[in-house]
């Protein structure tokens, strides 16, 4: 996927939000795994990418976090959407769809012209 970082910055937040919308409450590792799996292992998330994004979303009030126990009874920090977060997913998803739709027109073979 070439230089992935640029796409990342803009889209990671949406991926995180969407993941949390689907999965409810989830810890950092879980979010990372889920995103990786959903991308068909095309993406790989390290600490330095994931956690700043989570912190930013939390500071902006879209997600909250609390400590809980994982499936293996390990202490982990769980993230979930706030109400503002749920709205934001819808808004950003709609924005993204529009953007991709516009781009798709440019990229599609120009047959109807």
């Amino acid at each position: 996927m070439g230089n992935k970082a640029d796409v990342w910055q803009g889209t990671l937040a949406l991926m995180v939000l969407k993941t949390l919308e689907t999965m409810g409450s989830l810890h950092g590792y879980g979010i990372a795994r889920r995103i990786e799996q959903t991308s068909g292992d095309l993406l790989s998330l390290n600490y330095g990418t994931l956690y700043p994004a989570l912190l930013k979303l939390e500071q902006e009030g879209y997600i909250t976090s609390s400590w809980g126990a994982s499936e293996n009874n390990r202490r982990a920090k769980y993230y979930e959407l706030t109400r503002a977060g749920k709205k934001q997913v819808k808004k950003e998803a709609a924005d993204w769809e529009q953007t991709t739709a516009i781009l798709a027109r440019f990229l599609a073979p120009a047959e109807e012209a």
Partner: protein
Amino acid sequence: MRRLRALWLRVRGMFASGRAEAEFSAELESHLAMNIEDGVRAGLSREEARRQALIRLGGMEQAKIAQRERCGLPVVEALGRDVAYGVRTLRKNPGFAIVSILVIAIGIGANAALFTVVRSVLLRPLPFADPDRLVMMYGHNPDDPDSRNVVAAGDFYEWQKASQGFEQMAIWRWSGYNLSGQKNELPEMVSAAYGSWNLFSMLGVQPVLGRSFDPNDDKAGASRTVILNWGLFKRRFNGDPAIVGKTIRLNSQTYTVVGVLPGWFTYPDPEVQLWTPYRLEENPQNIESHFNHMGHVIARLKPGVSREQATQQVSGVQHQLFLRYNNSGPVVAGVTSQPLVNEVVGEVKKPLYILMGAVGCLLLIACLNLSNLLVARAAARRKEIAIRTALGSSRARLCREQLTESLLICVAGGAVGLVLAVWATRWLTTRWVDMPRAEAVHPDGVVVAFAVGITLLTGILSGLLPALSATGRGVLSALQDASRTIGGSASRASLRKVLLTAEIALTVVLLVCAGLLFKSFVRLRSVDLGCRTDNVLTMKFFLRRPKYAQPEQIVAFHTGLLEKVRALPGVEGAGLTNVVPGDGYYGDTGIRFPEHPPLPPGVHQFAIYRTAGPGYFSAMGIPLVRGRVFTEDERGMTNDKHIVINQQFAREYFPNEDSIGKHVFVSWESDPGDAYEVIGIVGDTLYALDQPVKPMIWFPILSGNPVESVDAMLVVHSRGRDVTPLALPIQKLIAQMDPDLPVSRVLTMEQIVGESTANSSFSATLVLAFAGLSLLLAAVGLYGVLSYLVTQRTTEIGIRIALGARRTQLLQLVMLDGLRPAFVGLALGIAGSVGATQLIRSVLYATRPLDAVVYVSVIVTLLLAAAAACLVPAWRATRVNPIQALRAE
């Protein structure tokens, strides 16, 4: 909104404890652990799973740093660290910190205070509507390009009729009234002015109560009306709006109050308490006259017309009047004008700019001094800076740290300075006699902004040079000269010397200017007025109609008063005049000489007009040169055609003959006027300290002539003892004789002279104080640099001593090192002064800008101060113990 919330959280994050960080570590740990567990579950060995997870997740420390930066605001935090660091280093050197903060505080305080005054007095436009279109018009003599005469009312009304470039023109003149009470309030003499009815509307001033004058008020014989100034309204009438429409008593006549002016209106002078209509109050002859110049004319330009153009046209009108009337009396030949604001600001402009220049220099010197001290500090921290550079600190980072330090000093100094400025501004405006619009001078937002601006500028200016020099290339060499280097930092020392040279040069300029101003003041102060100035008391009163309408009434009051005053114990002499020497020009009168051949038409002769009674000249100590002075005989209007003249009058108008017994025609209101016989010549006196002697003429005050005698100043001399205790008994005497008669200007002659020199003494003292402060700063700077150099060269000096150098040689060596920048600075400063003093030339009295005495004393003072500053370090150098010096490093 969301961004703001994030920002707030980050600001809070700056103060958070380490808990968040520990939590984050735990979160990362659990992430790693879960990743490893998944790997193990997928069938990897524990080691392999861990290895893969670590590769995949990247650096944990980097993630923590990223997290930390995201949690707080790194820029602010770095700044906070710099500030904390700066505060700590300053706290370690409290002496240095306090001295530099004080120096900067004085610099900034003085600048902010002067700026406040300059801004309010010179820069802020007048509080009138469209002030740019307001001009002041004067009579003008084309032979003298600087001449600006007050205007005769007759001329004014002609201008008003014929002018095309002006929308409106108004006239006013000074006046004064005895304001007496309705119900036993104390009488009071109030300064006042007559103004043409359109004056206020032309300026755009609306009375806050009542109305302005209208054309019906401004007529001879109209019913008497008056407009009160706010101050009088508040003070005398308790600010009671009901006064409008009621009457007050001025000169024992009733006037109806029609309006009250707003409090900010203080034109032409805050002392003016009330206004009356021009034509109502001015006597009819003056209104028609083209010869009696007493009016001040303000005019408003039509939009789009230039001042020159409009004035030119009026000047043409005046020239016609000149041609028509000049043969029968003095008429000005032309008209000139200047913007009203220039006239209002007038005389304070120059001294204020000089002071502003002086405080600017002071601040620059303070800056250089701080810079110098910081260079020294940086030199002491050379190794620390080198090590930090080696460890990867960027130059910008190190510079920022140093700048923070100088900014801290300046901000602290600026804060103290601003407080100083508030206090200094108040002090300045109360001490400065006759400062225009003094009531409007107070610090405001702009002044604070100015103070903040110069504070930052000072901080950056004084911090930048040391910061750049301390962190530049070659910093790392500091690590190499760990031991045994001699005279290592020559370049830094030379930077300090350059700073010092500049500081000394500026100091010299300040000292020279201060010296000249001071000398000029001393000259002015020691001018011989031509009369006694110690133990003389004066007080002024006006005998107004109708109570003193008859000459007999006036004479009776004057003689009665003199008799009673002379009977008081301690009174050596008493007399009456209208104006004492040194108290101003007051007025002149046209004269002709019947025994001389007639003058060519259009040439006029004048003498300053004074009155005197018997005993005046002896009480005042004005010597009689020839003939006699007035006696009790020159009394009443039948025997009053006698005059006394001064020596200048005799020199100028009777150059080759004896003036006693000759006659002088004085045209009062009618031509040809009355012939007065010269009975005596007295010594010359000055009407103002800084003005040349003019011909002067005294008329007998006991004539009772309602024109000459009503305006009186009582002069009382008491030999060899303080005269002020006499003031109260005399005032009581006057109150007994006429309870309605107010007395003003109860002053000693010393106070009158002091009043006229107060401002020059004030600015001279201030500039001198600034110069002294600069000298002190320069000396401290010199001392600092030299002490530093000596410490640097201890080893070298030790070696020299060990090799047999004599102490006197060492003393010479170090002294020369220190005095060299002093000499160079002195030379530059003298060169600068030659230019700078040309700028202050116009405020100097009887002092040339290149006064040798001043220059020599400045050179001597500076060299003495420099030598004193160098002596201590030099002496210390000679005391160096060679063994210890060589062992020191």
